[in-house]
C-alpha cells in the first residue's frame, strides 16, 4: 500500500476520538478513502450536502442512527437532499405507513446530527449557493455536476455515507476535482448550429455527453444564445445520470470556460466528438422506451423545480384542464412550493389538476404504483430511471409537449426543429 495521507494535529485527534466516537468513525472512513485515492492530505470544506437521507433499506437507517447514538454533531453547515417521503402529505398520496415511518426515521437522524431540512435535490437553488473556488462536500450526482460546472465550486463525487463523514468532521481527501488540473476539459463536444433550441435540447445533450464521456471532463463548444440556469441544471442532471460526470464546461457560459482554450487548460483535447442531428437523435430516442401505452402520469421536477420553472408551467396551463385519468406531479422543495403558493402559481397549477409533491420525488417514494400507465416527463433523469424503478414505459418530451399531452390524455410529441438534419 502507498503511504497514507499526511494528517494534521486535528486529524490525528479525530482518529483518537478527541471529538467523540461518531467523528472518529467518520475520520477512519475518510482516511481509508484518502489512502485508496493516494491523497497527500485532507482539506477543510465549508459545507456539505447529504444524499444519504434517501431510503435505500435498513442498512442506511442503521448507519445514520449509529452516528446519532454515538453523539455525532455535524461540523459544517449541511443541507439535505430529497428524502423518501413527503412529510406533510404521504397519507393522501397512499404511501404505506411502514415506508413513511422508515423514511421519516432516516430524515430525523440527519436532522438530529444537525443537518438543515432543505430536502431538495436542487440545493444550488437555495439561498446562499456555494461560491467559485469554495471547497465543499456535496453528494447527489446532479448537484455535484452543477456545483462544479455551473458554480465553479469544488467538490468530488461524494456518495452516500461519505457525505455524512465529511459533514461530521468538515474534512475531505485532497484529490480530484478539489485540485486545478483534474477540472480541465479533456473531451470536446462540438455542436453544429442547431437553430432555435427549446428546453428539451439540454437534457438530450446532457444525456449524450454523459454517455460518451467516460469519466473525463467534457467541454461543450458551439452553444450560442441565452442559456438559463435551469437549462444548465437539466444538462448537468442528464450528464450525471448517463455517466460519472462530476464536472463540465460550456464554452462562453460556465465560469471556468471563458474560452475553449481556457476550458482545456491550453492542451489539445484527448478526443473531439461531433454532435449533429444523428447523435442528438439517438440520445432523444434513448430517453423513451420502445413501446408505450395509455398515458398515466406526467411528471416535472427532477431535479426539483425552481420558481421560474413553476412560473413557466403555470403560464402554459393557465385556463386549461388536465385530462381525467392522467396524474400530473410536480416535485419540488417546501420552500419553492411556499413561494409558488404566495405568488398564486400553485393555485393555477392545481386548478389544472397538477399535484405538488414536496421533500421527495417520484423515484424515491412509492407514490406511483407500477402498472399505472405510461410515464411522461421533460426530465432525462426521470426518463432514465422510471422504467427500472417504476416499472413503466416512458415518453420523453419538452415541457410544452408534456403539458399538451396532459391536456390531450395521450402522449403528443412534436419532433423538435433542432433534430432536423
Amino acid at each position, binding site marked *: 500500500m502507498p503511504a497514507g495521507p499526511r494528517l494534521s494535529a486535528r486529524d490525528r485527534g479525530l482518529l483518537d476520538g478527541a471529538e467523540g466516537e461518531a467523528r472518529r468513525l467518520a475520520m477512519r472512513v475518510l482516511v*481509508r478513502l484518502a489512502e485508496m485515492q493516494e491523497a497527500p492530505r485532507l482539506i477543510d470544506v465549508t459545507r456539505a450536502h447529504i444524499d444519504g437521507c434517501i431510503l435505500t433499506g435498513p442498512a*442506511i437507517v442503521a448507519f445514520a442512527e449509529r452516528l446519532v447514538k454515538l453523539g455525532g454533531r455535524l461540523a459544517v453547515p449541511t443541507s439535505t437532499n430529497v428524502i423518501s417521503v413527503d412529510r406533510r402529505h404521504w397519507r393522501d398520496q397512499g404511501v404505506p405507513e411502514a415506508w413513511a415511518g422508515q423514511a421519516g426515521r432516516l430524515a430525523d437522524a440527519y436532522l438530529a446530527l444537525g443537518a438543515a431540512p432543505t430536502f431538495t435535490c436542487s440545493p444550488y437553488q437555495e439561498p446562499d449557493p456555494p461560491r467559485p473556488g469554495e471547497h465543499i462536500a456535496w453528494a447527489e*450526482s446532479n448537484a455535484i455536476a452543477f456545483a462544479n460546472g455551473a458554480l465553479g465550486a469544488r467538490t*468530488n463525487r461524494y456518495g*452516500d455515507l461519505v457525505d455524512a463523514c465529511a459533514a461530521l468532521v468538515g474534512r475531505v481527501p485532497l484529490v480530484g476535482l478539489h485540485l486545478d488540473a483534474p477540472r480541465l476539459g479533456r473531451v470536446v463536444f462540438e455542436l453544429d448550429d442547431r437553430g432555435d433550441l427549446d428546453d428539451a435540447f439540454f437534457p438530450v445533450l446532457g444525456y449524450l455527453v454523459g454517455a460518451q464521456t467516460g469519466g473525463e471532463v467534457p467541454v461543450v463548444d458551439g452553444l450560442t444564445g441565452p442559456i438559463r440556469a435551469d437549462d444548465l441544471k437539466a444538462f448537468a442532471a442528464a450528464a450525471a445520470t448517463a455517466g460519472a460526470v462530476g464536472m463540465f464546461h460550456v464554452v462562453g457560459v460556465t465560469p471556468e470556460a471563458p474560452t475553449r482554450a481556457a476550458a482545456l487548460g491550453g492542451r489539445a483535447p484527448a478526443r473531439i466528438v461531433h454532435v449533429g442531428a444523428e447523435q442528438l437523435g439517438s440520445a432523444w430516442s434513448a430517453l423513451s422506451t420502445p413501446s408505450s401505452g395509455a398515458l398515466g402520469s406526467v411528471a416535472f421536477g427532477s431535479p426539483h423545480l425552481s420558481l421560474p420553472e413553476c412560473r413557466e408551467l403555470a403560464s402554459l396551463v393557465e385556463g386549461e384542464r388536465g385530462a381525467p385519468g392522467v396524474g400530473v406531479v410536480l416535485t419540488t422543495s417546501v420552500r419553492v412550493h411556499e413561494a409558488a403558493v404566495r405568488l398564486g402559481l400553485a393555485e393555477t397549477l392545481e386548478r389544472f389538476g397538477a399535484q405538488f409533491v414536496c421533500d421527495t420525488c417520484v423515484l424515491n417514494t412509492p407514490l406511483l404504483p407500477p402498472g399505472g400507465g405510461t410515464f411522461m416527463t421533460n426530465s432525462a433523469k426521470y426518463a*432514465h430511471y422510471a422504467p427500472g424503478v417504476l416499472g413503466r414505459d416512458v415518453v420523453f418530451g419538452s415541457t410544452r409537449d408534456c403539458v399538451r399531452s396532459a391536456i390531450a390524455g395521450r402522449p403528443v410529441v412534436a419532433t423538435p426543429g433542432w433534430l432536423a438534419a
Partner: protein
Amino acid sequence: MIVAGSADGPVLASDVPLSLWGGVDARTSEVIDRTHPLCGRRLTGHVVVLPAGRGSSSASAVLLELIHAGCAPAAIVLRGLDAVLAAGIVVAEELFGRSLPLLVAEPDLFARALGARHASVRPDGTLNLDTVSNID
C-alpha cells in the same frame, strides 16, 4: 487491490457502467436497469466485473444494503477506482464487520476478466481467471 479479501465465484461481467442505485434492487441484487446488458441477473455471489459505477451518489448506500442483506457480490473488479462504491464497502466493514474485495484491474487483466467464466481473488490481491475453453 483497493479493499483486501478473498473470494471465489462465477463471473458476471459487462463493459457497460452500471448504477447500483436505480439500476439494482437493493433487497435482491437483481439488475433492474432495462437498458443494461445484465438486466434480470442477480449480483449475489458473483465476481462482478464492470468498468465503473455510473451517476448516482446512492450507489454506496445500495452496496451497503446488499452487504447488510447478505446478497452482495463475492467481489467487484473495476477498470478504475470508484470511490462511491469503495465507500459502501469501507462503511460496511466499520458498521457490520462485513466486507468484500474490491479490485482495480490493469487494462489487459480487465479485458480478460470481461471474458472469464469463473474468478477467484487471493488475499494478496491476485485475480485468477478461468476463461471459457474453446475445446469441449
